[in-house]
């Protein structure tokens, strides 16, 4: 439980740091009337502008797409789900270690599947967005690190879910008892992989928002 509280504090610190970063501009009041334009015509510039405006991508922001908006908000959802998972997982672990039946087991299980599913969708969107921005040199290192960490997190979530599923199957089949496997034997890898994935989620958000 202490580990979970520590992790939450780490997340909150990181969120505070990223909030300090200027991430967006907003208008503080309605636009004023523009200053008077010079009336002298520059026909060459007019023709250049005409040609420029006829280009289909002249006003197309490479990141002005629903895939970026969905990716952003899905990312925040996954961070929240991960936080909840860390707390639930920690509570489940502590209860098991104390030899009691954890009340958080079912919630942890289904939220885990949800988080893994959302992460898969998020990673697919992330790869799409990465490809859309492939021409953009500035920030490419940051985006590549973000992609790598997110891929690691998603792979970790799926792996953690698979480990937990197999452990449950072993317990149900009686294999675990036959092999004298302890709770630690069955779930320590699940826990380790889960923590690494959660940390990757945190850092991938910090990297891209920084």
């Amino acid at each position, binding site marked *: 439980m202490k580990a979970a509280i520590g992790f939450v504090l780490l997340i909150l610190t990181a969120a505070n740091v990223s909030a300090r*970063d*200027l991430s967006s501009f907003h208008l503080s009041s309605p636009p004023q009337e*523009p*200053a008077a*334009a010079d009336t002298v015509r*520059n026909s060459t*510039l007019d023709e250049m502008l005409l040609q420029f405006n006829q280009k289909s991508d*002249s*006003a197309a922001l490479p990141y002005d797409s629903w895939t*970026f908006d969905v990716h952003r908000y899905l990312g925040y959802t996954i961070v929240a789900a991960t936080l909840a998972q860390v707390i639930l997982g920690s509570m489940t672990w502590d209860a098991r270690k104390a030899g009691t039946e954890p009340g958080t087991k079912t919630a942890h299980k289904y939220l885990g599947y949800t988080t893994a599913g959302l992460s898969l969708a998020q990673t697919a969107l992330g790869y799409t967005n990465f490809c859309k921005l492939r021409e953009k040199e500035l920030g490419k290192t940051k985006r590549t690190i973000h992609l790598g960490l997110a891929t690691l997190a998603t792979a970790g979530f799926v792996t953690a879910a698979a480990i937990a599923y197999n452990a449950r199957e072993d317990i149900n089949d009686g294999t675990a008892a036959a092999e004298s496997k302890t709770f630690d034997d069955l779930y320590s890898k699940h826990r380790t992989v889960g923590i690494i994935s959660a940390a990757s989620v945190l850092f991938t958000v910090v990297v891209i928002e920084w």
Partner: protein
Amino acid sequence: MNRLSTVITFLIVVASFSTGGAVTLNLKSGVVRYDVHLKTLGIGGDDVSAVNRTSIGKMTVTEDGQIEGGLIIPIVGFDSNNTKRDKDVAKILKYREHPAITFEVVEMTRQDIDRVLGSDSGQVNLKTKITAAGGSKVYDTVLDFRSEAANTIRFTTHIVGKFSDFGISPPRLGLILKTAPDRIDLSGDLVFEVEKGEQNQP
């Protein structure tokens, strides 16, 4: 090498005028940059800047000393290393209706034009009109120039403008968290290629 390139450039200019043609400056490469200083809760703060390497430029000096054409700076080309901020800036600049910022020379003496085209390096004063987000403003500015190689001239300039010059309110983040004063610094570092040619060919 610089002196040689200046001589070549000068000869091209002389030859162009003597044959009745215009001199055209085509943008070869360059960076346009903006800098905005944001204050956090009215004190200190961050410097935000973005660079744009996607400008299109062509200026023709006609026989009578007029300068036609200018610089087109696509708004979507600004990169501040923060895609969300770039998107917000593009919206503030009304990029859908006005996808580019334009820069044109509205007043420059013939003497200064000859100096730019015929000297190794120096400074000239000019009036330039910047159009952004549907608003325009004429600025007095100082242009530094330097011959780089044969037929190329590097121009650098720095203009201190205001958001309100273009009908834009200074940006802010949150209600009072981060605010910008009504000031935007624009700077350009542009390399143009000089060529002899007919005027009014965009």
